[in-house]
């Protein structure tokens, strides 16, 4: 019987952290969270305690907690396992976040494809209600906290916090202009804390271990452990929980068992498809935390480590990455809608062998002009990896010029011009 069953979860010490938080009060919770150095696991790495402290204490409108389980970043499948094996940690974390900011309602939003996980979550929520951990009087106190589960219906863009709120309000998932930030004006106009499902599932452990012990597990300014989703050309792909700051080379060669079929490493995408690619020379002494990966010119992102071997065409990989962002762009703002579309067209033509030398610079120019000019981070998410591919693998792009067939490709699509 796994921890997805409420009795087993309680046996393992589950919901003790929530009871402790109920006794200690909001200021204590936020101080603990700040001291733990826990940073958001969704991708941006914003300190969780700080985020919670931004919510105004007194507010005429109700406050909300929103758990982002719209996991859609290619290369990321960690929340999938959390919902499958540890749904009560998500609920307990939501309660704690609610206590910290003074919210009475928490929403847990799962992507539409995760139907069987939604059913697991719904059962867990019903069990927690039955035990009196949720409802009008949680744990026998006079504090109220409700949890509502919600299903999406297929949209990457909804993973962006303001688009998520729009979707939850029954609208198209188009991001809102910021400021005001969700901590001030969020869901239904009330102050809202939005956290990734992994962040929320980590919260009970932070309280249980104590902030100092949790912070000590990780590296400097990056507390604790995180789930790394190792995929692509490794011998043993999988989701691994490792301390923050864990060496990337060790992760690939020791944890992941090295490159599949004894081939050599060509490149690594360190944090989901939106993060710039890293070369083998760049991962030698690279610790996987937000600061070190940032210094190396990429991002830790959502922890999706995609390993690419020497038999892979980087142009094809770039094309597939961009095709995704072109498909998922909501079309609201022009730099993203047009930029992703033109990038896809250019890369398709290029990969098919109809590119001209100027295209390489054009691709770079397009991507550079998208950076920082879009409504939400989706535009950057498309531009950043593109710039990485073009800058670090320019030679491979040049090899595709003048009608030369792609040296690796099996799936050359005809260019749409």
């Amino acid at each position, binding site marked *: 019987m796994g921890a997805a069953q409420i009795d087993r979860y309680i046996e393992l010490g589950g919901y003790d952290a929530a009871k402790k938080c109920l006794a200690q009060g909001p200021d204590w919770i936020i101080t603990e969270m700040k001291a733990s150095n826990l940073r958001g696991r969704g991708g941006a790495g914003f300190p969780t305690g700080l985020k919670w402290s931004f919510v105004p204490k007194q507010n005429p409108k109700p406050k909300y907690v929103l758990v982002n389980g719209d996991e859609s970043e290619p290369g*990321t499948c960690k929340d999938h396992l959390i919902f499958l094996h540890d749904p009560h940690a998500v609920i307990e974390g939501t309660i704690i976040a609610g206590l910290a900011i003074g919210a009475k309602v928490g929403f847990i939003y799962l992507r539409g494809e995760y139907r069987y996980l939604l059913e697991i979550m719904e059962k867990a929520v019903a069990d927690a209600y039955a035990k009196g951990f949720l409802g009008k009087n949680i744990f026998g106190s006079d504090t109220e906290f409700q949890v509502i589960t919600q299903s999406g219906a297929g949209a990457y863009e909804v993973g962006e916090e303001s688009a998520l709120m729009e979707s939850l309000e029954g609208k198209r998932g188009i991001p809102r202009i910021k400021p005001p930030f969700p901590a001030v004006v969020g869901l239904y106009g009330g102050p809202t804390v939005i956290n990734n499902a992994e962040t929320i599932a980590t919260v009970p452990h932070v309280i249980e271990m104590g902030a100092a012990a949790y912070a000590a597990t990780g590296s400097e300014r990056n507390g604790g452990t995180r789930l790394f989703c190792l995929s692509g050309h490794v011998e043993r792909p999988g989701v691994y929980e490792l301390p923050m700051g864990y060496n990337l080379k060790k992760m690939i060669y020791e944890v992941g068992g090295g490159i599949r079929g004894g081939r050599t490493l060509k490149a690594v995408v360190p944090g989901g498809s939106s993060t710039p690619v890293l070369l083998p020379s760049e991962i030698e002494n690279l610790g996987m935390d937000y600061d070190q990966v940032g210094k190396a010119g990429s991002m830790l992102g959502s922890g999706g480590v995609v390993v690419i071997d020497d038999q892979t065409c980087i142009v094809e990989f770039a094309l597939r990455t961009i095709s995704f962002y072109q498909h998922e762009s909501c079309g609201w703002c022009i730099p993203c809608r047009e930029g992703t579309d033109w990038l896809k067209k250019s890369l398709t033509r290029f990969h098919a062998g109809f590119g001209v030398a100027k295209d390489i610079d054009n691709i770079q120019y397009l991507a550079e002009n998208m950076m920082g000019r879009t409504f939400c981070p989706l535009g950057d998410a498309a531009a950043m990896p593109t710039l990485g591919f073009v800058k670090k693998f320019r030679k491979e792009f040049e090899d595709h010029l003048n009608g030369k067939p792609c040296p690796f490709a099996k799936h050359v699509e005809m260019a749409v011009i």
Partner: protein
Amino acid sequence: MSPETMTLFSPALAARFDALVQKYPLKRSALVPMLLYAQDEVGYLSDAVIAEVAERIGITQLDVRDVASYYSMLRFKPAGKFNVQVCTNISCMLRGGYDVYERFQEELGIGHKGVTPDGIFSLEEVECIGVCCWAPAIQVNYDFHDELSAEHVPGIIAGYRGKAHAEAGVPDDGSSSPRWKPLVEGTGLNA
């Protein structure tokens, strides 16, 4: 005609919708899940489904269409009884996602968003479905199949075809290939 007296959904789903619209601080929050659940039962978002959902929430049909057209899982045309969604995004691509997708195309004789003539299968190339570490993966309706290769494809198809035939009461000996009764367009009801 109020939804209480006339509904095109099953009694269980209608009851679920009654509860769903009460669940949120705003009724409209029920819209996205409602459309998905309605589609699961009816097969697609027909005019009748859209009309009833709009009435239940108290918004216009145009509002419903506007929202529904945004989400990639929602469709306005019937799909096959089993909708095969093959992920070809990066993690799946690196481990042979396209081989799996091409094999499905060959075996089923249809392409992206196509439906087989017997109505049992439809095929879709989809973006990341969150099974990257067990790639390549597919989703058939809501069921995941992972760690696949092209060789697994005929077995998966046979399994689902058998299920469809068993449900329709057809002997699965290959002697007959009856047309699976598809959804009739326009009514939103099972014919």
